[in-house]
């Protein structure tokens, strides 16, 4: 899953060198700002064909929690 999310990050941020892991947070990635965050969420929703709730997005502390949310939606 991290590889697919990495692909979304690279597309959205237009940077093929981005490397993320479950502990990655916004401060670790240049240009990961509030607008980019929206684009990332949209990119992930499209990639995995899922829909998040606003409340779960706001609760993510790092990429790992984002992955957990994706997992939960994929396994519903």
């Amino acid at each position, binding site marked *: 899953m991290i590889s697919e999310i990495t692909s979304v990050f690279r597309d959205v941020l237009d940077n093929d060198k981005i490397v993320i892991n479950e502990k990655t947070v916004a401060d670790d990635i240049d240009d990961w700002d509030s607008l980019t*965050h929206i684009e990332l*969420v*949209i990119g992930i*929703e499209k990639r995995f064909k899922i*829909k*998040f*709730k*606003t409340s779960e*997005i706001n609760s993510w502390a790092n990429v790992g929690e984002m992955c957990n949310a994706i997992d939960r939606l994929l396994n519903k």
Partner: protein
Amino acid sequence: MILLGNCYSIPFMVSTAVYEGFIATFNDKNPLHTDEDFAISKGFKGKVMHGNILNGFLSYFIGECLPVKNCIIHSQTIKFSHPVFLNDELVLNAEVTEVYESVNAYVFKFYFQNSDGKKVAKGDIRIGLLL
């Protein structure tokens, strides 16, 4: 409320006031836009209006024509496929094609059509609603 599939149709006119206001504001006096003979020599029937005048119309659409006012444009694309001339009457047709409730974002696909039925420009806009 903005819903998937909502459609909008808004008329605009590229009036002298719009044209001169655009030049006065942004100072783009390229001869294609300001010199009738030059524009005709390049194969157009008259002065070609600045494509970004249409972006002004889009700004009006998003800012004033939607049923909500707490909106902001995140991004937009536009392709210009036919020239627009002074006093052309255009209709902006826009449809909500994507909704992302989790981040309060909405995507509109749009096109501008002139009175000859030609689509002179098309693109998409993504907006966000501010909470």
